[in-house]
């Protein structure tokens, strides 16, 4: 044993020492590396948190800047509300959502609110922040947080200073609308519905009362009284006010309120405004423009495919039938909408239908060679109205 130790003792000791260093040192250095990795990882997390905090702080600062007098903002949860709106294509329904909401403070006093609304313009993902002043119930500023609109179209909003409209826009109005920018109507509409939606949420969060439409449209017809139809081509039956007061009112060609039929107290201005939008959506196509009892010349209009079709009709001496007529229109025809269309030049369809009425003495004219989407129905409505007018002139015959 002693010989063995003498022979290999030194080597064994050296190797043992070596193994000890290899093991213990390895554990120590591995431990160091693990601690280092943890530190680096924690540092990365800290940096990421700082980065996000900086972004949040910058966002809050930009929100605070939307309302004069505000100096801080605090996140809060807005009331849940769901409503769908028609997008700029007049076809798609879209339900905006609140992405974020912040209360704005001046010191400790709550002075305003910011709603970040997710809406849609031409494309989805349009996020707009609206600041609302609690004391005036007005939108004081707007900030586009995120957008994916077509750059060319979206650029038009800036050119037209579109966003300036939101700088002092009262929410206390029946029809909350903004002027859309030509060439960027989809984007404009995206802003409009976002603001309308924000107002609904604002009303829930802060006891704000949205002015409501106080008018119900019962019916609307073309005015057939030659004495008044020149200025008021439409007559509407409505109920309005808190008590649903019934009334029959005159409306202009642009559906502006023109007084009570038979005279009386005018309806309130809010009801007039509301009535205009209701009437424009429900009005008949055809109406009278003028009638000269001496010459028997009637001017009528009807809403066609491409604007108004104006027909000037001259009655015969006995005012029992149409003697002649002239059509003035901007209609265009094409095969897609006109089965049997032969390629005749406008106003061929209008003329054909008028001639059918005159020769066949029927109001149920069919739109041969021109059953257009817009032109046919417009002319049919005009002919029916004309026929009833001539019938009335002749004592019901």
């Amino acid at each position, binding site marked *: 044993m002693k010989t063995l130790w003498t022979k290999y003792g030194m*080597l064994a000791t050296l190797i043992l020492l*070596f193994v000890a*260093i290899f093991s213990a*040192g390895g554990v120590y*250095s*591995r431990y160091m590396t693990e601690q280092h990795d943890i530190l680096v990882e924690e540092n990365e997390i800290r940096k990421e948190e700082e980065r996000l905090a900086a972004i949040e702080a910058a966002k809050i600062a930009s929100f605070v800047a939307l309302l004069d007098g505000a100096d801080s903002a605090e996140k809060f949860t807005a009331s849940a509300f769901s409503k769908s709106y028609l997008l700029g294509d007049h076809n798609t329904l879209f339900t905006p959502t609140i992405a974020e909401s912040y209360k704005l403070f001046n010191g400790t006093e709550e002075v305003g609110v910011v709603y970040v609304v997710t809406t849609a313009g031409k494309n989805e993902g349009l996020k707009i922040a609206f600041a609302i002043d609690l004391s005036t119930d007005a939108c004081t500023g707007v900030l586009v947080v995120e957008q994916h609109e077509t750059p060319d179209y979206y650029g038009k909003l800036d050119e037209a200073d579109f966003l300036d409209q939101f700088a002092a826009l009262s929410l206390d109005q029946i029809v909350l609308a903004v002027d859309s920018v030509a060439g960027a109507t989809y984007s404009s509409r995206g802003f409009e519905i976002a603001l309308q939606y924000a107002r609904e949420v604002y009303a829930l969060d802060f006891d704000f009362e949205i002015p409501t439409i106080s008018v119900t449209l019962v019916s609307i017809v073309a005015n057939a009284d030659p004495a008044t139809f020149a200025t008021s081509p439409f007559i509407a039956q409505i109920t309005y006010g808190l008590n649903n007061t019934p009334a029959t009112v005159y409306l202009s060609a642009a559906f502006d309120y023109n007084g009570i039929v038979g005279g009386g107290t005018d309806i309130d201005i809010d009801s007039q405004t509301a009535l205009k939008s209701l009437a424009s959506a429900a009005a008949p196509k055809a109406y009278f423009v003028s009638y000269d009892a001496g010459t028997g010349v009637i001017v009528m209009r009807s809403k066609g495919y491409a604007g108004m079709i104006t027909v000037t009709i001259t009655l015969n001496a006995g005012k029992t039938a149409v003697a002649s007529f002239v059509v003035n229109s901007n209609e265009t025809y094409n095969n897609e909408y006109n089965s049997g269309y032969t390629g005749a030049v406008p106003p061929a369809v209008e003329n054909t239908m008028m001639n059918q009425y005159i020769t066949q003495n029927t109001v149920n004219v069919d739109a041969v060679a021109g059953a257009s989407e817009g032109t046919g129905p417009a002319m049919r409505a005009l002919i029916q109205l004309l026929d009833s007018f001539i019938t009335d002139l002749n004592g019901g015959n």
Partner: protein
Amino acid sequence: MARFANGKGPFLRLSDEKNYGTTVIMRDFLIALLPLILFAWYKNGIQVFIDGNITLLESFYPLVFILTGGILSTLMEGIFYFVTDKEVRTFKALFNRLSTSYAVIPGLLLAMILPLYTPIWVLIFGCLFATIVGKMIFGGFGYNIFNPALIGYIAVAFTLMGVINAAGGALNASEVVIDAIGGATPLTTLSSSGVLTYNTLVAPYGNLWDFFIGTIPGAIAETSALACILAYAWLVFRKVIKWFVPVIYVGTVFILSWFIGLSVGQTGLWFPLYSILSGGLMFGAVFMATEPVTTPRNPLGKAVFALALGVFTVLFRFAGDFAEGVATSIVFLNIFTMPIDKWTAVIRVEGVNKKTLVKVIVLAVLIVGVAAFAIWRSSSIYHVLVDLSIMIRGAF
């Protein structure tokens, strides 16, 4: 060191005296390393512990790592002796042998110039190269051609730098969380960015005073110029090294870096100062360029060697894959130690005359040529030449 004896004989050889010779030299050498080791412990251990980024156990790691390097090279030398020399198979014989072979030095130096987070097995690999390949294969202390520690360092740098970086690299736990540093030492920043501005190279690490003190990222014990200067003063005072060798080496790097700075419009002295205060230049200049075995012995040879080191260090910093040019230039020039020693000995004795002129010219042309190439490689002088050619063409 060697002295010519004047007067009449007989003469006593001082190196045979008890308190003289290599034993004392090596003792002084180890004393000189002390401030660097202590600073390394302070910078990478104590200070980081105070910063709260490591635990007490971790704060001892730099010290343990450096000492482990010394122990490892001693162990390897012992095992080598056991295998190759029948005489050295007992502890007594081994201690006798180790007392004159200074086995602790290569591992100690190697551990000092490695990154802090070098795994222990990589240190073992480096010590193996340093001790066995760099020293023992040539015959042990006094016979090695290359600086053993640098052989170990180059072996590790060529093969395992990726492993070291994956394990944590050079930055200590306080440095790694500083975003401005971005995980890079000053020289790796220069190497990777190639941008030569104060804000890129110095500002992220503080100022040039931090470079001087050594509180900048780098290998464990080589960052402090102050500690190196203390060691330098001690070694010069003890006549262990020639005072002019580190001065010429560092001075050459300073001047060449100044030219490089000037060629890109950096007229300030910050770039040459940055160049001499970053990386292991000071450490290499004091402890490796002066190594008695692997560098020329006559003073002129030492001076020429130091000059060439400065030139090649700058060249390798701008031309090589490594950000650091000190280790490669010293090992490279170790090859030429003997011819430089011989040529300069002749020149020193005979002066510049017809016989020695060729040698002088060859040495001068080589050094100036490499210096010019180094500046050109820094991609700076090229622009100067283009400007010059445009000026000349414009004149005609």
